[in-house]
């Protein structure tokens, strides 16, 4: 037994003791690390990961008790995450931890490094356990694989033997996905559901179009769509009451404002329509929101476009009863994250009278109000916190069905953006 092996065994023993006595809070112990290893060795290690330490009763028989099982654990899903570098891998590890060890039973983080070919495969396996208030212990396994050289072109073959069988597999690209890389198609093929964050797309139009054309059995998840959930809820609430629902057919203007960095923050807002290489477009949320409203309300065709100043633009759409002005405007601010919505205003000017439906965000509070026929009704303040990546991921891991409403909104968002580009060009 060499020294290194002994060190690892000791570490494992400590880890298992901690597990056994249920230390509070979250335990993250790297327990196995190997350079230049093989898929088979990794799989073999994963298979023994939860072998309980031998506990014997006073007669020397293996101890079996109803409540004293070392790891009572139910498996829920596999999550495959592909990142570009070690820094991104660290961020994902933190997000997974922040997930409160909520969903994945096994998370495999892939760090492909093309080019360099010696030591094709490094692996780091750790387990994370989190104790709930009721004394339940939630655990998951995390496998970080650095794949180099030619092997990086065959990621699916490396991952496949490492998945927990018979569980749904979610494939997530936390940053700009390599849409044109054959490995992308391999992993998409392998997943039951694929997850993206369209706020990370550097080529927003290309990305939206590609998502719109990806058909997947268990659907596509988009963390940006999840970011809109509370805005959608508040918007829908305006029209749950029949007395305000009558304004819906006569909406004539939708103004959406979204956050971009302040000019002095080092990054000029520039023209958010233009895609700058390497910089994600901040407009994804605003476009998906517009696409959602447009498809839900059956707004059809754009007529004219007025490019406004500083990256804002305005389209005219044809509703079922009215023409609708759709305006999307960036607003420099340091108060919220770039790309977050700041304000949504829906105006109705029909025979039913004038009304405006407003959600204005300042920091982590929003003012929600309805102005109908000159009266302000139901003015209220609601919490509006920017969800953490882990919360977004958690919600998207729970919904594992095709969402036609998202897919429609996605296609409409691409069309709105393309229209803005065309006229700007």
């Amino acid at each position: 037994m060499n020294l290194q092996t002994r060190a690892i065994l000791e570490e494992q023993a400590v880890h298992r003791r901690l597990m056994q006595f249920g230390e509070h809070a979250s335990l993250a112990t790297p327990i196995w690390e190997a350079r230049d290893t093989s898929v088979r060795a990794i799989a073999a290690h994963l298979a023994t990961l939860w072998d309980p330490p031998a506990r014997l009763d006073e007669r020397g028989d293996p101890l079996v008790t109803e409540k004293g099982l070392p790891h009572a654990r139910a498996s829920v899903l596999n999550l495959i995450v592909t990142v570009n570098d070690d820094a991104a891998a660290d961020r994902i590890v933190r997000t997974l931890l922040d997930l409160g060890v909520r969903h994945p039973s096994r998370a495999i983080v892939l760090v492909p490094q093309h080019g360099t070919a010696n030591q094709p495969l490094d692996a780091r396996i750790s387990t994370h356990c989190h104790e709930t208030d009721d004394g339940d212990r939630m655990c998951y396994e995390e496998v970080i694989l650095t794949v180099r050289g030619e092997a990086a072109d065959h990621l699916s073959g490396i991952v496949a033997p490492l998945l927990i069988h018979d569980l749904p597999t979610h494939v997530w690209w936390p940053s700009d996905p390599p849409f044109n890389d054959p490995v992308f198609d391999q992993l998409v093929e392998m997943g039951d559901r694929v997850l993206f964050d369209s706020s990370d797309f550097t080529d927003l139009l290309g990305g939206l179009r590609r998502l719109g054309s990806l058909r997947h059995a268990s659907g596509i998840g988009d963390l940006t769509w999840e970011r809109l959930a509370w805005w959608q809820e508040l918007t829908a609430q305006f029209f749950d009451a029949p007395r305000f629902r009558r304004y819906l057919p006569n909406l004539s203007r939708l103004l959406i404002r979204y956050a971009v960095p302040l000019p002095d923050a080092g990054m000029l807002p520039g023209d958010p329509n233009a895609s700058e290489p390497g910089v994600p477009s901040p407009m994804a949320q605003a476009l998906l929101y517009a696409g959602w409203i447009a498809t839900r309300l059956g707004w059809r065709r754009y007529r004219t476009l007025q490019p406004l100043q500083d990256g804002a633009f305005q389209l005219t759409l044809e509703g079922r009863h009215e023409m609708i002005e759709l305006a999307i405007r960036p607003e420099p601010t340091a108060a919220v994250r770039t790309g977050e919505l700041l304000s949504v205003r829906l105006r109705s000017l029909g025979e039913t009278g004038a009304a405006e439906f407003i959600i204005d965000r300042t920091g982590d509070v929003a003012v929600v109000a309805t102005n109908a026929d000159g009266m302000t009704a139901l003015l209220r303040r609601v919490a509006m916190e920017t969800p953490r990546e882990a919360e977004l991921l958690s919600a998207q891991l729970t919904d594992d069905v095709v969402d036609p409403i998202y897919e429609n909104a996605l296609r409409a968002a691409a069309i709105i953006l393309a229209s803005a580009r065309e006229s700007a060009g």
Partner: protein
Amino acid sequence: MATRTAEPPSAAVIPPPEAVPSAPHANPLREGLRHERIAEPCTMIICGATGDLTERKLAPALYNCLLDGFLPPEFTGVGFARRQWTDDEFRAHLLAGINKYSRNRPVKPEIWESIAATIEYQQGDFNDPAAYVELAKRLDRIDRDRGTAGNRLFYLAVPPSLYPEIVSHLHHAGLAASGDDRATGGKRGWTRVIVEKPFGYDLESARTLNRVIADVFDEDQVYRIDHYLGKETVQNLSVFRFGNGLFEPIWNRRYIDSVQITVAETVGVEGRGEFYDETGALRDVVQNHGLQLMAMFAMEPPVEFGPEDLRDEKLKVLRAVKPMSPADVATNVIRGQYVSGWVEGERITSYRDAPEVAPDSETDTFVALKLAIDSWRWAGVPFYLRTGKALPSRVTEIAVQFRRAPLALFSRAGVSQVDPNVLAIRVQPDEGILLRFGAKVPGQGLQIRTVNMDFRYGSSFAVDSPDAYETLLVDAMVGDASLFTRADEVERAWEILQPILDAWNTGQGGPLHFYAAGTWGPPAADELLERDGRAWRKP
């Protein structure tokens, strides 16, 4: 799983959305959102709003519903009680409750300001007709100002003895009728009333109570709250049975030997002496939680998961329970009362020494009974129910014992009969499912040991479950009565238990047994099963 590439859509036209089923006149923006079930604008009136229930349960539940977006923006809360409070005093009472008991806390001041503006207080004596007239005026004004559209949810957070008075005054003030039955108020909107348990004290009082309520409200307006039914597990029980193909085929007398239902508490009466001494375990737990759990466990699959279908099926189970003769009571029902002992490392004094308990009290703090469900599915399968205070652990579970393997195939190898398989469904505290089966001990020779396969909800879904009251309040606002008890269920449950109460009253029901706090009830309860060749589980 396959991907298919479609042409990118043309840039000029937003295509018509792909067919998303849409109900006519529905809010098109609501469809597909996480909350598809949204309460209509409404006012909730809490009668007895200054009490403990409001502070501990209702205010936190409403606040969490609001944060999660389950309440409509128009939602308005009105407290109605005797105390001379101002709106602000009432709001402070709610805020204190939320900051103390809510799963989300503390409340952000800037948001509370906005919530407080939707809360009012109506002072009034429950026996004063003028108070209800004032209340009616206030509710009409709220309908106008806040757009609550005449929808009203009354919550009777008062002792049942006050129900007749309140219900009758609501009626005379025109506050009880729904929609078209309303004399005034634009004939719009619904009125619903939530009633807390206990639903009566015995069969007769339950019938009287139901009649009092039925004189004023239609049954579809009445929501009897048994918070057990709002727990996630009880809903999981249905998913477990009807969402899996594996269990339902063996859920019958052919495969199941017996069923044990345990609702055990570790605490004694602790300050509830006066109430409990009048009530006892049979009334306090078996009548509602115990029989409801049994009904959910034993019912036939409903045709649909609608409220009436579900409650019809539960009622059928209760109707199939054979009522007992006094002789049956003496043999099949064991009642017990705890004497001093140790529970969870603490000393508990005898029940009779507890404050406000009669020194010669005959009240049951423990009851174990054997019931028979005379239905095609369950004939011959005994259902053993037990509940009690000052027991060794706090646990609610349903345990199914399956029949033994038909042959003792391994007896020649010196192995006696293998223990029967057990499937235990734990409701609380560690919600989950456990399956017990025999396995060979590795090595030469043949030795069989029983092992447990244990699944805990908490270890696969670490999601903050909503409190039962959150689920139930939203259900009542949406008009979904599935998790509420219907009048006929309540009365049938009392019909099952009344012969037991009568036998005890007339001294024919067998003696009161004593058990030390911290034990699983009196030895007579064990004998009840030993007679049948069975034993209680030690959960």
